[in-house]
């Protein structure tokens, strides 16, 4: 009896080639993808610098930071601008060399050089701090010692300058601040994809679709009728989870409640529409579940949610930008933690809206009035 049931289960699986393909090919694809893409050590982290000193010594520091390959330096024209670059997400780090640097260096007054790091992503923050430490290594500083000819040489010299590392946004480097906003997105993604992922395929399996298709129901009514109620439900769910985050984990308030609502609305719409598309593509509820999972897993790993986007190799990075969740993570961290300006988030909002339109459009195309 046992063997008969086992055999029957295997036969049923074997007769569903799409499911088999999903079970075998997708894990392989994801394994290779993650094998290539997932590294904890980022490189080419964008660093905005403002060098007021412009001496050979300042150049030395910049060259060193650049030559390690870890930071990718570009110039801005004020100290304030460094903060803004990091707030907008264009840079993850900043370097400020003050005007008096060389003057103080010559006088052995130990000038200060400041490195700013983005604190919203603690793993990246730690890595950036670690990588900027070498700035005070002797290979950088050995030309920076100034001595009077009659002075007795010091055996162990102090560093000629002091490197200050300032953590911006989330100075306490709280891991919960970093993860929780993204977690909300993951939860919503799961709810939305699974809720709508089965919605059409279930009607197909229960044969209610056949009766529905006979009616003059329009494509738009069908698709929007399937999308809208779930958008409202998932939206309520979003605020429910967020409220729990505020209550239980002291999550900061957003810079703008309107923008947060807009984000929730657009993201939820994207996910519900994607769920509907899955449901139209899948032939069985099982297949729909598999497809949903295979969208959720790379979304979590490649979106910058856990691993910094900077750590994803350039060859795979375009894929990260094909994941709606990537934009969600960027925006929600911007709103809750960095208080990023609206202008700097606009592109992310536009990307999310683009996805919503794309998925709804594809669903309308994919919805056939015939069986």
């Amino acid at each position: 009896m046992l063997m008969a049931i086992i055999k029957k289960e295997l036969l049923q699986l074997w007769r569903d080639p799409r499911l088999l393909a999903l079970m075998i090919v997708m894990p392989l694809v994801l394994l290779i993808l993650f094998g290539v893409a997932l590294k904890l050590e980022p490189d080419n982290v964008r660093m905005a610098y403002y060098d007021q000193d412009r001496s050979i010594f300042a150049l030395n520091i910049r060259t060193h930071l650049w030559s390690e390959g870890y930071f990718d330096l570009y110039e801005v024209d004020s100290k304030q601008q460094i903060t803004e670059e990091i707030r907008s997400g264009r840079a993850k780090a900043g370097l400020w060399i003050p005007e008096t640097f060389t003057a103080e260096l010559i006088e052995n007054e130990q000038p200060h050089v400041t490195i700013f790091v983005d604190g919203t992503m603690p793993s990246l923050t730690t890595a950036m701090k670690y990588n900027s430490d070498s700035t005070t290594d002797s290979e950088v500083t050995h030309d920076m010692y100034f001595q009077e000819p009659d002075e007795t040489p010091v055996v162990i010299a102090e560093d000629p300058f002091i490197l200050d590392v300032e953590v911006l946004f989330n100075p306490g480097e709280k891991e919960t601040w970093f993860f929780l906003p993204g977690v909300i997105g993951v939860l919503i993604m799961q709810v939305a994809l699974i809720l709508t992922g089965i919605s059409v395929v279930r009607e197909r399996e229960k044969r209610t679709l056949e009766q529905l298709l006979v009616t003059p129901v329009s494509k738009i009514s069908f698709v929007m009728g399937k999308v809208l109620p779930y958008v409202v439900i998932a939206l309520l769910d979003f605020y429910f989870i967020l409220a729990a985050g505020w209550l239980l984990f002291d999550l900061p308030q957003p810079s703008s409640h309107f923008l947060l609502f807009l984000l929730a609305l657009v993201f939820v719409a994207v996910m519900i529409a994607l769920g509907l598309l899955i449901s139209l593509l899948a032939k069985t509820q099982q297949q729909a579940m598999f497809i949903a999972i295979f969208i959720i897993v790379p979304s979590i790993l490649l979106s910058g949610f856990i691993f910094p986007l900077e750590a994803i190799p350039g060859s795979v990075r375009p894929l990260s930008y094909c994941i709606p969740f990537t934009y969600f993570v960027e925006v929600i961290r911007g709103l809750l933690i960095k208080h990023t300006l609206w202008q700097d988030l606009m592109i992310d909002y536009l990307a999310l809206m683009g996805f919503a339109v794309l998925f709804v459009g594809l669903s309308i195309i994919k919805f056939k009035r015939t069986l």
Partner: protein
Amino acid sequence: MIEAVDLTKRFGQNLAVDSVSLSIPKGQIFGLLGPNAAGKTTLIRMLCGILKADGGHLSIDDKTGLLAKSHYGYVAQYFGQYEELTVWENLKFYAQMYNVTDTAHLEQLLSRYQLDTFKHRPAGKLSGGYQRRLALVCAVAHDPEVLFLDEPTAGIDPVTRKILWDEFYRLSGEGKTLFVTTHYMEEAQRCHQLAFISSGKIVARGTPSSIISALGDVDVYATHLSYQPELREELSQLEGMVLLNQFGDELRLVVRASLSQQELASRISNITGQASDLDKTTANLEDVFIALTQSRAD
């Protein structure tokens, strides 16, 4: 009114429906008869617009495509209403799909189909017979001119079947056109017009009485005999034997005119060892059904 010309549907290599043309006037009950896998459901689904025909032309009430949709209703072979919704919620939903919102009209329909007592019961909790009534009431909520019914009484008890057929007659009397697929002979008998489909082709059509002539020039005999495999074996070998059909203690024989009554009688008594009283009778629809199905299979 249904007009179909050369409707064709292919599934891969298999020609499921092969150039079927139909013209069904208003107010008729049209029966599509055929064995399983003959193409009945495929044809009815094409007529309802939920399966795209590979070729041919179709109009319902002189409308085609989307425009025709509000002119017909459809009851699928399997229960396709929402099990979680109540009878009333299902009916309102389907009515709204056709922009019908007149609740008094819907209430009236419920009582006409004796569903008013189950108004607030989830559809999934209804018995098979009431589920079929619900499907029917949902299909007629928008008062369509044409009704497509795919095996509407399959698996339904005789009393409910009669009630449903009374309803079909009433609808036909009101001038509605009904298209019914079935493989029940007594049901086929009730239709005004019949078409017999086999392997995707219409092989016979006409009124129930005229379709019997599809058998050609045959004689039909009946005798009282219990089932005997060797007798069956022997008789089926005979030149001119069209069909052997055992019904309990009755054996029906459909034979070409070349096979005489005397020869048959002697063959039978040779095997059974006793004289048999062979009564000459007339062919019925079941004889036609089985004979046509067998001849296509051969």
